[in-house]
């Protein structure tokens, strides 16, 4: 019985690691693609006096995908700002604060996954102005990113049985 448990746990751990790596790869790759597109367009404009109007549109949508795909992974890296002042001084109530914050965050992303999906379906016929891309392919970033965040939050509970607060050190301003 214990052996089976250990075996199952480590398989889950490997799955978790693969999930983190693939999520990270997607975020990093999209950022690289954004950089290449915008930089190449500047070069094209100055060297060949010609640039592509669709780059502005595509790179904008890449950024939106980065934001929602990165939300869950960023939370595992403790990159979201939160005010932990009150839970820090809450003494014995501290676990209560942490669980409430975890549950509140989970509920928000669950709702956002649902409403994001509804919105993508609602706007299913919209197309983008330059390339006539179906807009639902971009709107889906919201529900998919939210769903991935939920998975990250569940995986994180295995690593930290008590939810870890965000470190307040994340946002890059």
């Amino acid at each position, binding site marked *: 019985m214990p052996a089976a448990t250990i075996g199952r746990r480590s398989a889950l751990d490997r799955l978790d690691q693969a999930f983190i790596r693939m999520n*990270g*790869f997607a*975020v*990093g790759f*999209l*950022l*690289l693609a*954004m*950089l290449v597109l*915008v*930089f190449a367009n*500047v070069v094209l404009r100055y060297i060949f006096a010609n640039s592509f109007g669709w780059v502005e549109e595509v*790179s*904008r949508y890449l*950024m*939106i995908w*980065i*934001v*929602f*795909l*990165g*939300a869950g*992974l*960023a*939370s595992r890296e403790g*990159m*979201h*700002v*939160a*005010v932990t*002042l*009150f*839970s820090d001084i809450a003494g014995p109530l501290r676990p209560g*604060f942490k669980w*409430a*914050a975890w549950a*509140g*965050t989970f*509920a*928000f*992303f669950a*709702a*956002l996954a649902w*409403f*994001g999906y*509804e*919105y*993508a379906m*609602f706007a299913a016929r919209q197309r983008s102005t330059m390339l006539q891309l179906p807009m639902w392919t971009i*709107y889906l970033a*919201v*529900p998919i990113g939210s769903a991935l965040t939920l998975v990250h939050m569940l995986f994180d509970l295995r690593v930290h049985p008590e939810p870890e607060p*965000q*470190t*307040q*050190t*994340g*946002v*890059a*301003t």
Partner: protein
Amino acid sequence: MSAVLFGAFVVLLILGVPVAVVMGGASLLAILVEGRYPGLIIAQRMFSGIDSFPLMAIPFFVLAAELMTGGKITDSLLALASQIIGRLRGGLGHANVLMSIFFSGISGSALADAAGPGAVTIQMMRDGGYKPEYAAALTASSAIIASIIPPSIIMVIYALTDNAVSVSALFVAGIVPGILIGLALIATNGFLAWKRGFALGEARRPWRQFISESGVVFSAVPLPIIIIGGIHSGAFTPTEASAVAAAYALIVTKFILRSLTWAQLPRLFVRAGLMTSAVLLIVSTASAFAWLLTVLQVPQVITNAITSWGLPNVALLLVIAVFLLICGLFIDTLPGVLLFVPIVAPVADAAGIHPIQTALVVILSLTIGMITPPVGGVLFVVSVVSRVPLTRIVAAIIPFLLAELFVLLLLVLVPAASLWLPSLFGYVH
């Protein structure tokens, strides 16, 4: 509806829910309870809040700073700062501030300064015999220069929130106040060094030797020139300038200096991507929150109330600064700008204060909030990287905090401090 919105905001914030989720969750609850709008409007508002080309400057500026730090350019910036000013009494402290001014020209983020080069300078000052809390306090207070001297992420966001100012005007306007903060900190450090009898710094290396050992530092020089010059001349939009800066940083560190390995690159891109996500998720949910505030006509009510007081300009700016300093104790710079600029900017504008001066006062007031407890992002980062407890840093930071409040007062009282340079560049009519 406003009771739900503000009640949920306060409760979620106190529980320790991430700020992005606080604003998104409060908005969603208010929308659902009110029932006038469908729930999917939260997704629509969050999406349109970040569906913006100018916002793309943020990932690229973050990436450029990550690449320059990963490629060890920041170490040689520190060497240059020590070379210039390090031999004076309290010289390592002076070098710390000067290094922050240099780093500000390639980074738009105070937290990036505190976490990257800040960690190195604190260690260097400790090795040089400074008290750890003194080193940490000085590093924290000089890190905020990165948000004032261009490029600046918070200025990009400010310009999107207040249409009366452009990113390029704010970038130019930030240079003088940023340098003033640096000078104020250097003066404070010098005074403390003299009063407390700090040792003299090490003697300067011959410049010829410095250039052969740390000459790579000059590869960072074109970056601020590309950013400011490119945007101001109209050659690039701010977003394009940020992409060129990131590409430049990549090419220099990877192919010219070769100080960056292939193995490091994916991690730097992922980190920059995740930081982008953390910043823009706040922008995203804040735009839903701000939309609800507009629906509830909150900005209008506050604007009318303040305008009815009929304060003279200086008093009005002072009230704004004090109000934002108090808010800054509890709330981060980014949500601060997103929530308060739509309220504050029209009031100041109606009173005839130049929008660029308002912008600088607002940005500095909220940025100082990053080094004040109980909620101060830069303080937390510095405490983590220096392993000095927060309370000891807070005690040591007071003189530097006073120096920065003095500069803030100067910005309030003297319009020229923020308007003189932009007027030379033709941004003030």
